[in-house]
């Protein structure tokens, strides 16, 4: 007789872990979810807040928020998208509270692009050398930084980004375009005298 195949807890899908946690209130299930996403949430917090101490506190608060709202997760999006949207909103709120005049998006900085401005291709950012990309991203306003991270790190759809930021799809597209233009301007300011160096 073939032995019964039991699924290991680490092989459970996110939905299975959530359902079991809500049913049994056993923290073992939540631990697996935590280990699956904590690193990524922490990395986003460091990138957004630029402070490791604050990123630690933020990661802890975000997972407590996730835990307390787990029953409200409706699976309209994937669990990862839901967790990341809590992360981005938490970090943006934190930056807003920290600065009295927050510069969240490029239009707040002063340079407002027009729809007729040329579209910057994705390759401009995706082919940038990593250390240069890091410096460019660090100089972007937090909102622009978040929107580019959602698009190029999390592969989120325009609709999902809109849900996170409370913006329409066309507003998100415009925001991405502005963020890319802003990145190009920063890159040119930093490296216009250097020879072009890509990955």
């Amino acid at each position, binding site marked *: 007789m073939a032995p019964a195949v039991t699924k290991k807890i680490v092989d459970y899908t996110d939905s299975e872990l959530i359902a079991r946690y809500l049913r049994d209130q056993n923290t073992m299930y939540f631990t697996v979810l935590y280990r699956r996403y904590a690193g990524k949430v922490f990395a986003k917090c460091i*990138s957004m807040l630029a402070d490791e101490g604050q990123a630690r506190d933020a*990661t*802890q608060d975000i997972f407590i928020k996730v*835990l307390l709202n787990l029953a409200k997760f409706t699976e309209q999006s994937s669990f990862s998208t839901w967790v990341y949207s809590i992360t981005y909103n938490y970090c943006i709120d934190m930056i807003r509270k920290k600065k009295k005049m927050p510069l969240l998006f490029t239009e707040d900085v002063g340079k407002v692009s027009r729809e007729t401005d040329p579209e910057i291709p994705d390759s401009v950012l995706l082919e940038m050398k990593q250390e240069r*990309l890091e410096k460019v991203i660090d100089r972007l306003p937090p909102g622009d930084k978040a929107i580019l991270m959602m698009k190029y790190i999390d592969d989120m759809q325009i609709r999902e980004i809109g849900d996170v930021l409370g913006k329409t799809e066309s507003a998100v597209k415009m925001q991405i375009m502005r963020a890319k233009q802003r990145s190009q301007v920063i890159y040119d300011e930093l490296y216009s005298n250097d020879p072009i160096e890509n990955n």
Partner: protein
Amino acid sequence: MKNNFQQWQSDFERIPPEIEDRVLQQAKTFAAFGKVVEVFVPNALGAVALMIGGEAPMRPVAHGPAEHLTDDVPLWRIPPGRDH
């Protein structure tokens, strides 16, 4: 294959272990608190209801009188001489 953005992020993914301890400790506290609430709140509400002259909510009786029994007798409790 990671792109340059994802590569840049993965450099920061090493999370300090003490955060896990703190988060999971809080998770355990919430779970324990939830169980306490589940057990005591219905009783407390029943007591308040009685104090203000109402009736305590009906709860299942472990060994109630025979008239509370329905025909849905569990298989292991079929009385002698009674068919399925």
